[in-house]
């Protein structure tokens, strides 16, 4: 594993990605403001993307970085849509509180 000349051990990278993902998840679950939830979601996406880059580096090919670019595009598209929703939500409710959107409760 060390043969590709990676400076840091892979476990550290994975632990970092897991920590990043958990921080993002905790943000999604605890934040009530939709804007902050979106930012936390970005953190989770980046954690996943980081694992791809890491794996690419470990195996010594470019596939990981290709996937990273793909995720980046996806994130850009997602943010474009989500921000439109945020703007609409704010226009209608004058607040970004996600818990106020419970009109579909069973």
């Amino acid at each position, binding site marked *: 594993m060390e043969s590709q000349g990676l400076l840091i051990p892979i476990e550290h990278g994975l632990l970092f990605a897991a920590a990043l993902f958990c921080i993002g*998840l905790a943000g*999604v*679950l*605890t934040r*009530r403001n939709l804007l902050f939830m979106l930012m936390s979601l970005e953190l989770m996406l980046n954690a996943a993307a980081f694992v791809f880059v890491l794996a690419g580096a470990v195996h010594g090919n470019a596939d990981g970085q290709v996937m990273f670019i793909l995720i980046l595009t996806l994130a850009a598209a997602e943010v474009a849509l989500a921000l439109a929703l945020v703007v609409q939500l704010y226009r209608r409710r004058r607040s970004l509180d*996600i*818990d106020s*959107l*419970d*009109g*579909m*409760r*069973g």
Partner: protein
Amino acid sequence: MTAWLGWIPALPLFSSLVLLLVGGRLGQRLVTLLGVGSVLGSALLSGLLIADFLAEGAAVTTRQLPWLSSMGLEVAFGLYFDGLSAVMLGVITGVGLLIHLYSAAYMAGDEGYARFFGYLNLFVGAMLLLVLADDFLLLYLGWEGVGLCSFLLIGFWYREPANGYAARKAFVVTRVGDIALAVALLIMIQQFGTLHIQTVIERAQLQWLGSDWSFWVALLLLGGAVGKSAQLPLQTWLPDAMAGPTPVSALIHAATMVTAGVYLIARTQGIFLLAPRIMELVALVGALTLFLAACSALVQHDLKRVLAYSTISQIGYMFFALGAGAFSAAIFHLMTHAFFKALLFLAAGQVILSLHHEQDLRRMGGLLRRLPFSALCFAIGCAALAALPLTSGFYSKDAILLQAYGLHGGSLAWWLALAGAAVTALYSLRLFLKLFFGEAVTEPSPDMRPTLVVPLALLCLLALFGALIPQPLGAVFAPLAATEVPAAVHGAILIMPWLGLVTGVLLWRYGRGFRQRWSDSALARSWRAGWGFDALYDGLLVQPLLLLARLNRKDLADRPVQFVAWLSARGHAWLSVTQNGRLRRYAAGIALGAVLVLTVVTL
């Protein structure tokens, strides 16, 4: 010619199918064309067949189509046509056609016009199937079809809860008799392995001579007949059946339904003759019914209920004649009764229409000048009902009483029937006087609607001269031995109606105070309620059943079902908590689920 036999019941059945399926979309004109036209077609075919039969005089059987074959029971679908079927066919299609014609005018503009004609055609079709059936199972199909149609038609104006109740009562009460008939059929299957009517009767005469089977089967057949023909003890449904539209009453009382019981006994006379005790019972049931119903008819306030009780009474005469062994006289009376009872009901319908749906005799009177045509119809109908000379009813009732006396002499049943003749004349007169004499109470709109006049005029002719129509029954029933009837007995039979009429006139003229007191007396009230049979059955059967149902409301057998219902209700409440609309909870659920799955996969 016999190839056309199948079309007679098929035409009305087919037209009823069309009317009930798509009748709502057809115009009133088309519905009339289909509803009346199909019965007209049946009537024409029947006329041709009967003429053919009168010329050749041999019973015919149509092709036997295999219908059912199981466990040694072979049932074929075939029609049988003999003198008895010919008479029934003539009555059903002839009188039925006139009633259909009348209905086209009577029901015009009703929102259920197509439905009405659909039911009416189904009724006629089922009745035709009943009298043409070659096989007891096919007969039973027609029998049940007739019961179903009476239910549908009595409750035709279903928005009135009382009509629905009357329909249900007719259905349930006749059902009691139907079960007896069904058991009789099961015994036949068990004994002979066939339900072919002629075969069953032939074998019964060979095998049941002196055995108890004939007694039981005849008793059960009688049970079926009293249910359908509204005889004691199952007569309670017929007066309530007046809830239906008036042409329906005419159809039930004259052409179809109540004559089915008389037909059944006449058709299975071979079995009844093996059980002399049951024959006596038939005569006694008929005589009691005719007398009790005649007394009830005497005190009714409702025009149609008078006619209903008179029907029960006249059917009682037929049963009495059947029980006495005077089969052809019974069928003769069936025919003449169909004519004059249809006439009376249709004329009553005209009076009721003219008085804007008024049926209470106490609010009628003095209509002679205002409704002359109805008065003429009623005069002829009542005269025939009272068996005045030269009307058709005279000949048939005379035949019944004479032949019954010749066969059995003056038994209790015979004396009851004789007394009933006087009571019949009395209530016929009462009905006529109450309607057309006395003070006028309400102002009628004029009668003589041309569409209503034609059937009524034809029925008037039939009620007067219907006794001249030949009855080809010679081959069906064994001829009666000629017996000498004393002149005094014959004189008594002739005098009885006049006795009733004279009493009636005297009471009308001089007995006003007596009539008032009598009408309020306890006896008259009990007669008006049909001798209290309704109250008796209510106390004896209905209330105990309701009590049992109330006691057993928390039925043990219901518990598992109720547990399933409780479980799904709780499960629903529990699961619907998770659907709270909070996005963050859903996300938490997804995360938790992912963690769980990962744990399971990695460990």
